[in-house]
Each structure stands twice: as C-alpha cells, then as structure tokens.
C-alpha cells in the first residue's frame, strides 16, 4: 500500500463521526493532566518555599534554608547597605517590588525542582562559610534585576548593569584601557583633556564614529580586524594593503556602525554612572530614570548634582589612581622570597653526605 493511500485512510478516519466524538474527551484529558501537573508544581513550590527562612533588610529579601540562614543574614545587611548606597530610594519605593534572592546549596547547577520561580537564585558552593565571595555575587545578580528599570537609551549606552562597589576604587583594567586604547581621544583624556574624556566615554554622541573617534592608522587597524567580505574586497584591500584612508572610512562610516567599537570599554561608562549615582544621594537613580531621552551628559549632570566637568574630573582621578603595579616587587614579596631563600639555604647547611 502506498503512503498516499495510508494518508487518505487516516484523514478519512479522523474525519469520521467516531473520531469527532473522541476529540473533546482527549482535550479534557489533556487539560486535566495540565491542571494536575500545575497542582503538583504549585505544592512543590509551596513546600520548597515553606522550607526556606526569610531574612529581610530594607527592600531586600533573602530566602535560605536554615543551614544558610546565618550567611543570608550577613549578606542581606551588607548587601542592602550597598544597594541603597548606589540606587538610593528608587529601590525602596513602594511601587518597586522587593528584590528577592534565594540561596541554594550547589556548586554551580540549576536550582532544585520546586524552587520559587519569582526570585533571583544564587548557588552557594558546599563548604562556603564566608560572605566575602557571596556578597559581590549576590549584588551583581540583583544589579541585573535593577537593570530592568533602565530605559532603552541608558541600556544601549551602558550595555550592562551598575555595580555597587565604591566608585573611588575602580578596577586597574580601566587604567590599562585608557592608556592603551587605539583612539587618540583616550590618550588626550589620559593627559587631562576633559572634553576628550567625554567624547571617549560616548557622552557626546558622534555624528560619524569612525572619523571622530579614530585617526587614520586606527581606522586601518579596525578594518584589518574585520572579515574580508567579497562584496567589498577591493575597498578592503585599498584600506588595508594600500593605506587609503577614504576606503577605510567608507567601510566604517555611519553613526552607529557596528564596526566601530567605542574608544573606552563599557566598564568605563559604568564607572561614571556609578560615580554619579553615589555622588547624587538617595534620589540620584530616580533623577537618572526620570530624565530619559535627554543627552547622556545632561542626564549624568542631573544624576550627580554636579557639572559634567566635575564628574569627569573625579572619574579621571579615580581611573588614574587605579594604575596597576606592573612589576610586583613589594617589600612583602621581597622579604618572603629572601626568607624562603634563607630557609632553603639552611637545609643546604644541614645536609649530610653520609646517607645515600
């Protein structure tokens, strides 16, 4: 029997009065099964939630099993202080739902079955006793929850959440980026040009990023890192092989060209926002959100309560002060190395020639 005949027979049977009578019954069975499954899930969630202790600090709620409750207590107090220090009253407002984190014991796996779905799950490695590592992890994940409040302009400019660490001590990575950035704007910023800092941070929206952010060698290097598309192969070669800047510009042109990366990494932008929030007091985050649609520089002025130049000056000072130590020869390292050298030397003096 050919497959066409089988298909025709199946269609005829499905269309028959018997099959039509079966359909409502099957649909009812399916709905009953879904309801039963939902009931099981719900009771599992209730059971899982009732097993968890609740620790509250401000608008932060931490759910944890009794064994993790002391840890949750420490993290809730320290975490809320830092969250409020950065995001101020905005996350305390009644319209803002509580930030809920829930701890579960796991190395890095998913939460157990029945775990509350409306919370930020945070795995706690078995044996972890201190809050030192868990506080930043919890705050980072909760920062992502706060990020949902961002308007599209802020989200597009920042491309990430805002951390809650004190802005005066940024990562040395920002300094390295500032002094090794391919853009001449970054170098001008490093030597103290605040206008250049503003442009390098993207606070002044460029009309043409390729020509405003980079010089000719920089544009050529940007193109060299691109995929050589066969449609633009001649232009690509003109730019890379013959160093014709017009060819490079034509490949990179455009206000939001995806090929032109910003002069400074996004972590630099995050630092300036964090600094503005921490300077601006409890209502700073609210002012930042309320000014959506205005230029980013103006929004940061409103947020911080100081002029953009003052904010950029503090940002510059913080970044420059985070200069890393490239060749790490501190007194501690030196003395310890000498100590180990002497200790091994002592073993040499105590060595014996009599045993083999």
């Amino acid at each position: 029997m050919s497959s066409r005949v089988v298909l025709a027979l199946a269609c005829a049977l499905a269309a028959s009065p018997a099959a039509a009578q079966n359909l409502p019954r099957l649909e009812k069975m399916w709905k009953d099964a879904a309801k039963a499954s939902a009931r099981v899930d719900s009771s599992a969630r209730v059971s899982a939630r009732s097993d968890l202790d609740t620790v509250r600090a401000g608008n932060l709620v931490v759910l944890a099993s009794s064994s993790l409750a002391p840890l949750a207590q420490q993290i809730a107090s320290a975490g809320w202080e830092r969250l409020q220090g950065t995001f101020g009253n905005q996350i305390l407002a009644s319209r803002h739902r509580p930030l809920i984190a829930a701890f579960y014991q796991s190395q890095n796996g998913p939460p157990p079955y029945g775990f509350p779905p409306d919370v930020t799950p945070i795995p706690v490695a078995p044996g972890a006793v201190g809050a030192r590592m868990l506080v930043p992890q919890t705050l980072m994940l909760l920062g992502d929850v706060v990020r949902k409040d961002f308007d599209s302009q802020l989200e597009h400019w920042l491309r990430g959440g805002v951390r809650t660490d004190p802005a005066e001590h940024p990562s040395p990575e920002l300094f390295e980026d500032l002094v090794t950035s391919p853009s001449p704007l970054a170098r001008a910023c490093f030597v103290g040009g605040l206008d250049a800092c503003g442009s390098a941070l993207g606070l002044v929206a460029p009309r043409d990023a390729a020509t405003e952010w980079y010089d000719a060698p920089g544009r050529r290097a940007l193109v060299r890192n691109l995929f050589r598309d066969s449609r633009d192969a001649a232009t690509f070669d003109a730019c890379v092989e013959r160093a014709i800047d017009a060819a490079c510009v034509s490949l990179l042109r455009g206000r939001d060209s995806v090929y032109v990366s910003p002069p400074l990494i996004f972590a630099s932008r995050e630092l300036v926002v964090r600094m503005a929030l921490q300077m601006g007091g409890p209502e700073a985050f609210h002012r930042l959100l309320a000014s959506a649609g205005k230029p980013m520089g103006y929004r940061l002025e409103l947020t911080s309560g100081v002029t953009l130049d003052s904010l950029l000056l503090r940002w510059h000072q913080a970044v420059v002060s985070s200069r890393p130590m490239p060749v790490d020869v501190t007194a501690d390292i030196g003395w310890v190395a000498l100590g180990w050298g002497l200790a091994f030397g002592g073993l040499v003096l105590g060595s014996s020639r009599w045993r083999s």
Partner: protein
Amino acid sequence: MFRTILFMQWTWARNLLLVGTLAAFAIPVVSAHTGDLTSVAGFTVRTYLENLQTIGTAYPILAGVLGLLLAMTAWGPDHRGRHVYALTLPLPRWKYALLRYAAGLTLLALPVLALWIAALIASAGVRLPVGLSTYPTALATRFALAAVVAYSAFSAISAGTSRTAAYLLGALVILLVAQLTLSLANTGLDVVSPAFDAIFIWPGPLAVFSGRWMLIDV
C-alpha cells in the same frame, strides 16, 4: 678557601653560565626593540604590550633554569666523586656547604647583572607614549630574587641525599595520583590547585615567580 671553591664551580659551570648570561642580556633588548613608540597608533601599543607580556614569561623560566643548573653543577661532582674531595678538606660539613652555596650565589650575580644592564640599555633606547613606563631595576630585582629562591631550593635538593630527592618526587607522584583517582571517582575534589596555590601564591616559596614580568608597562 672560598676563592678556590668559587674557581672550581666557575670551571664546572662557566659554559652554561655564559649561555645563561647571554640569554639574560638578550631578553630585555630583544623584547623592547629599540625604537620610537610615541608615533605609532594605539593598536600597536596594545599589541606591543601583549607581545612584551608573552616574552616576559622567559624571565621566570630563565631564573628557574639558572638556579637549577648552578645547583646541579655545584653539587653534582661531589656526588659523583662519593664526597672524597669534601672529606679531604679540613672543614666541618656545614662550613663546606656554606662555601659551596655562597660560591653559587656569587656566580648567579653574573646573569642578574647582565639582565639589569640590558634592561637599562633597552629602557634608554625606547621612546614611549604617555602612560607607559619602564621598570628596569624592579625587573632585575625580581629576577634576582627568583634566581636566589630557585638556586636555594634546588641546592637543598641537590646537596641532600638521593633519599631526599626521592621523597620529594614521591610526594609529587602521590599528589598527582590522588588527583587522578578523585577525578575518576567524579568527586569534584581538587587537591592539586590548593597545593599549587600554596606554592605560587604569596607567601608561598615560589610567589616571586607569579604575576606579570614586564620591562615596559602602564
């Protein structure tokens, strides 16, 4: 007595030591390239630093190899000669060991000095863009400390009995076998990393070897 022992160790180690000294001189000069970095694009600066970082791994390796070679050449002939020479000297064992150890340390000064001079020359010959600095003395100090630690550690093993070396090797094998067994049993336990951290992270004995070794950096 010290001069005699120093001369003997120099005779045994001179070929290897000269190669090591040449390498110590060459690494900073080759890595820094003499030139003007101020006029090049930022992309080149970043690539340049990445290359320097890659080449920088040669410094701790050279310090370790020099320590090993000097320790082996200082104590090897004694073991091969069944310690007859040492026994003929009118010296207590500790004093003899001290002389040998000090002679090795003196010889170690040669490559350290070569590296310092080369680093100073390379630093003087390169013009850097704003934000970058040279660290010739810090680099040479760190190299000296690393070479001293390596030489002392390998001397402690070489000057001791074969049993000492066997114990050390045995401990290493036990650690690796234990890790392999734990991995096969899928326990998720890691015994090698804590041991590695204890050795290479401050205040471990080889902490001076860790971190970045850069003649030119931010």
